[in-house]
């Protein structure tokens, strides 16, 4: 890794890679990820070869590269990305980043920067070193990394203990208590035959666990009923919502159930190909996931004639993401799977009608497939016994922030916020952010509210903010996140995320005036009403909650008078002052 790229080995490597995948244009993003993994950046030579062999203009390939945060055109031996979720910040990531910068001030070939939440909030602060996750950062660990880099130790030779990721599960309810043996749910579904599984799923009331909550059975049926030569199953493992990591834990502890759920879906909709779209931050799970896939192929649970059933052919390929939150949106994810920029598609048509390569496609969250396996085993009634009318069953939530026991918890829908806070050691708390940066900010007075689609829907993130926190810091963090992650396709989100971030910065520096407050409100409303996809529509949620429920927090941050300048005059003049003072300047 990161060896200096000389043209011969680049050519050889890329040619071999392309040959191995029969010049499949749809794998462009995967090729780029592999080339970068090999050389630490994307050399010119590689792009030229890709352009020639895939018959795509080089500029188009560069456009794809420019969309993904983790693809680079400039070499660096070490790329260190600090996870910049609010929970990492609360654990002191800024100081740790500074410590690393100071320690490596004179080292060459090192790039140190921040990235969006890396999904290790239960063991943060965290970073990615050349794409490999390192959690539990503290000064000694930072010093160890400084030492390794100063001694120019290649990343693959760094001690294994740095890369250990633990799976902390603190509460198991009916779904986690039940252990599914590989193949059991599939045999059950095959044995019952016909529409049995779909009917069970329908009766179970299972709704998508990614956040939007679309009824799973309806999605599968819509896809099944769309006539086509083939259908596709996609597992959305692009767990990018800040504060979420339960999919990481599921993939690490029970990948069999997730893949079995995908296979059940394939059986129902008649799919031959499946994909797991794994976020780049979870690359460390790749070897074990591939091992599970090959194990299942050997056991006759994947591949041709699954469980001896002639005509039941289904296999799964894993595609990696490359640092783009928007790819968690199902149509953007499909674009990315096809090797393109992750821009959401116009709907209708919906992916169930026209998805990957134009084929009817089911895209479900990791947990949804995992639950489908359990429902196939235990039945709809068993599942329904937990939860509420609109929100059947239990779900997993990832708890992080100011609490003594961060980790994954399984709760029936309808559980109160204060119950959860008590269990995780999160009381007293100022507020909780439900469902990630795009979700609801729930202040303490509302802790009697419940997790459910009827009240507070959640994609699985639950971030706790203790009494010592300033919620304006939280909002500022979210504003920066959305500005960085907006895909830029539609007018309101491309501009709105930028404007909201600018206004929040002004609030933080005490330079905001009443006009900013009014503008903030109207921009948020515009984004909610007019954005092209869920990202732009949901990005304002926490801000709107805060403005409604905690208006004093904003008022307290306003500048003393509406006539104070909204920018730092000195800072803005610094460049011209410097030029004037420079030798040769007019006033030198």
């Amino acid at each position, binding site marked *: 890794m990161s060896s200096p790229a000389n043209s011969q080995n680049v050519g050889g490597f890329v040619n071999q890679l392309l040959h191995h995948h029969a010049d499949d244009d749809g794998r462009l993003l995967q090729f780029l990820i592999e080339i970068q993994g090999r050389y630490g950046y994307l050399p010119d030579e590689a792009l030229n070869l890709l352009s020639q062999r895939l018959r795509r*203009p*080089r500029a188009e390939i560069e456009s794809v590269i420019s969309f993904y945060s983790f693809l680079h055109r400039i070499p660096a031996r070490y790329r260190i990305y600090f996870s910049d979720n609010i929970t990492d910040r609360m654990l002191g990531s800024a100081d740790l980043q500074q410590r690393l910068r100071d320690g490596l001030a004179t080292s060459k070939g090192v790039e140190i920067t921040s990235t969006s939440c890396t999904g290790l909030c239960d063991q943060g602060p965290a970073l990615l070193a050349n794409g490999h996750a390192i959690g539990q950062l503290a000064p000694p660990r930072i010093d160890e990394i400084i030492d390794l880099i100063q001694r120019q130790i290649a990343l693959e030779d760094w001690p294994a203990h740095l890369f250990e990721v633990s799976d902390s599960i603190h509460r198991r309810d009916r779904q986690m208590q039940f252990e599914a043996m590989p193949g059991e749910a599939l045999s059950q579904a095959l044995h019952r035959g016909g529409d049995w599984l779909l009917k069970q799923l329908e009766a179970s009331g299972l709704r998508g666990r990614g956040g939007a909550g679309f009824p799973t059975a309806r999605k599968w049926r819509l896809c099944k009923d769309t006539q086509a030569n083939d259908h596709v199953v996609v597992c959305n493992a692009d767990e990018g919502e800040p504060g979420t990591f339960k999919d990481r834990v599921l993939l690490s502890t029970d990948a069999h159930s997730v893949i079995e759920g995908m296979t059940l879906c394939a059986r129902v909709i008649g799919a031959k190909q499946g994909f797991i779209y794994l976020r780049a931050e979870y690359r460390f799970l790749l070897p074990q996931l591939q091992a599970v896939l090959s194990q299942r192929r050997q056991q006759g649970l994947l591949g041709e004639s699954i469980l001896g059933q002639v005509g039941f052919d289904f296999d799964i390929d894993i595609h990696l993401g490359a640092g783009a939150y928007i790819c968690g949106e199902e149509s953007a994810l499909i674009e990315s799977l096809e090797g393109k920029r992750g821009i959401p598609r116009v709907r209708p048509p919906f992916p169930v009608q026209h998805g990957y390569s134009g084929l009817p496609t089911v895209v479900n969250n990791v947990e949804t497939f995992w639950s489908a396996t359990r429902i196939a085993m235990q039945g709809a009634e068993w599942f329904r016994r937990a939860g509420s009318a609109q929100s059947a069953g239990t779900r997993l939530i990832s708890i992080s922030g100011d609490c003594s026991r961060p980790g994954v918890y399984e709760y029936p829908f309808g559980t109160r916020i204060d119950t959860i806070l008590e269990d995780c050691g999160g009381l007293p708390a100022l507020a909780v952010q439900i469902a990630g940066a795009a979700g609801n900010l729930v202040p303490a007075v509302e802790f009697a509210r419940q997790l459910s689609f009827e009240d507070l829907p959640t994609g699985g993130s639950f971030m706790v903010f203790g009494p010592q926190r300033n919620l304006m810091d939280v909002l500022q963090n979210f504003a920066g996140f959305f500005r960085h*992650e*907006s895909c830029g396709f539609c007018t309101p989100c491309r501009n709105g995320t930028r*404007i909201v971030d600018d206004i929040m910065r002004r609030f933080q520096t005490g330079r905001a005036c009443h006009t900013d407050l009014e503008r903030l409100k109207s921009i948020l409303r515009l984004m909610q009403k007019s954005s092209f996809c869920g990202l732009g529509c949901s990005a304002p949620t926490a801000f709107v909650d805060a403005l409604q429920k905690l208006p004093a927090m904003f008022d307290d941050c306003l500048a003393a008078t509406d006539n104070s300048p909204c920018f730092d005059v000195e800072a803005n003049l610094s460049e011209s002052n410097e030029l004037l003072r420079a030798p040769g300047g007019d006033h030198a």
Partner: protein
Amino acid sequence: MPEFTIDGRRIGFTPGQSIMQAARDADIYIPHLCYHPDFAVHGSCRICLVKVDGRFLTACTLPAAEGQMVENLTPEVQSYRRQLLEMLFTEGNHVCPGCEKSGACSLQSVAVYCGMLSPSLEFSFPLRAVDASHPDILLDYNRCINCELCVRASRDVDGKSVFSMSGRGADSHLRVNSVDGSLGKSTISLQDRALEVCPVGAILRKHQGFNVAIGQRRFDLQSIDQQGETGDERD
């Protein structure tokens, strides 16, 4: 023929048509910028936002359905459009008084039509380039609004893919597919549809600036709702 209602008027539609297509057939103007009847629906500018049965959706992407109640020119919808237009004006560097597309610019005309005469948002004054490398065509990134009409026209009609989009978020921008990224080295030609379709002054023919007198320019003669057209649309 199934019907829906737009601003109190019932109009018929052919199943499969979008609200935009049905409205055009009925000679009802819905302000828009990235929509063009000749090209694939895009849905990025959001100017054709309409309120349908209480929800805000874009007329270009929403299939018409029997009984829909569509609000097009209501104060609420128009106020959202003005905000979107403010965003488009302030994220780039639009120099209307000096721009040779003035008077024939869809962005300007839609803004006039919707009542967005002066943006209240701060200008972001981005640093953007002017590409004058081509002998006959000027590409001024300052005035680009990311509508991707040229991208679609060059790819789908001209068969050249001269343009594509690059970057992400506020950094999303048009780029030229040529060895050095310049228009001069690209395969664009004066006959290309991509050249005609630009609704603003980002892609301009050289050697003919300001050849139409003020008062005689396209939208001086007839406002955009009368023409109902974007860029080079012709009946």
